[in-house]
């Protein structure tokens, strides 16, 4: 604290920005971003549940918002974040057992996470429209 200038002038060690993005690194970043997005997405879940517990009129209004173009876009993003974060989390649980940490396997898992998250999200929405 006393010598703030001396420490702030120190050179930084190589940082995020100088590295070429690699699949595992990108998945790690997306995992954190989707986690943070889901944090705020909790507001949507609580809002939906509270509206159902409040009144029919209020529920219909909230439902109308979720059914609008913007609402659907937000929910689609929320679904993808949820699925991606879950798959990324399962990947972490596998790593916790000491498996799947080899360079090639980890890269394959990274590609599998992003592809599966998109495919599963689309399938979930197709089911959603089918049951409607």
């Amino acid at each position, binding site marked *: 604290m006393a010598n703030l200038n001396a420490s702030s002038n120190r050179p930084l060690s190589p940082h995020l920005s100088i590295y070429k993005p690699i699949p595992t690194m990108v998945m790690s970043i997306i995992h954190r971003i989707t986690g943070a997005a889901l944090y705020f997405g909790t507001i949507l879940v*609580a809002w939906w549940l509270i509206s159902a*517990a409040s009144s029919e009129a209020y529920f219909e209004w909230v439902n109308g918002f979720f059914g609008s173009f913007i609402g659907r876009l937000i929910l689609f993003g929320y679904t993808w974040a*949820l699925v991606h974060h879950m798959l990324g989390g399962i990947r972490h649980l596998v790593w916790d057992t000491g498996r799947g940490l080899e360079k090639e396997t980890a890269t394959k898992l990274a590609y599998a996470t992003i592809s599966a998250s998109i495919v599963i999200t689309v399938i979930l929405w197709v089911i959603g429209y089918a049951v409607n």
Partner: protein
Amino acid sequence: MSGSINELRTPLSKVRGLGSAKEGTDHFWRQRLTAIANVPLILFFLWTVISLNGASHKDVVAHLSSPIVAIVMLLVIISGIVHMKLGMQTIIEDYVHSDRTKIALLILNIFFAFTMGLGACFAILKLAFGG
């Protein structure tokens, strides 16, 4: 090693294994515990929401007030909120270095988690106990 002049940790502190923050692996353990719980719980949540797509208020209330659905939905919220609170705490600790801002955000994180958690649980219970 024990009793050596280079070892300042007491035998009791070693046995407890809680480290300097006195929490040991508590954060890690809860994070993984809720992560494992979240897999089936979030699948249940997705299934519930998707099956209720386009349903009327009456149908949604009827579905959510069934005891099994209400109980599992409460588990979804509790496990999800704990997991989310731990995750945001880590993000704050990683990126916010000024003590004042960090403590303020850590407090806000707890307030947010409790407000969302209690709000959602209250709504589920209200529905379950007959609206």
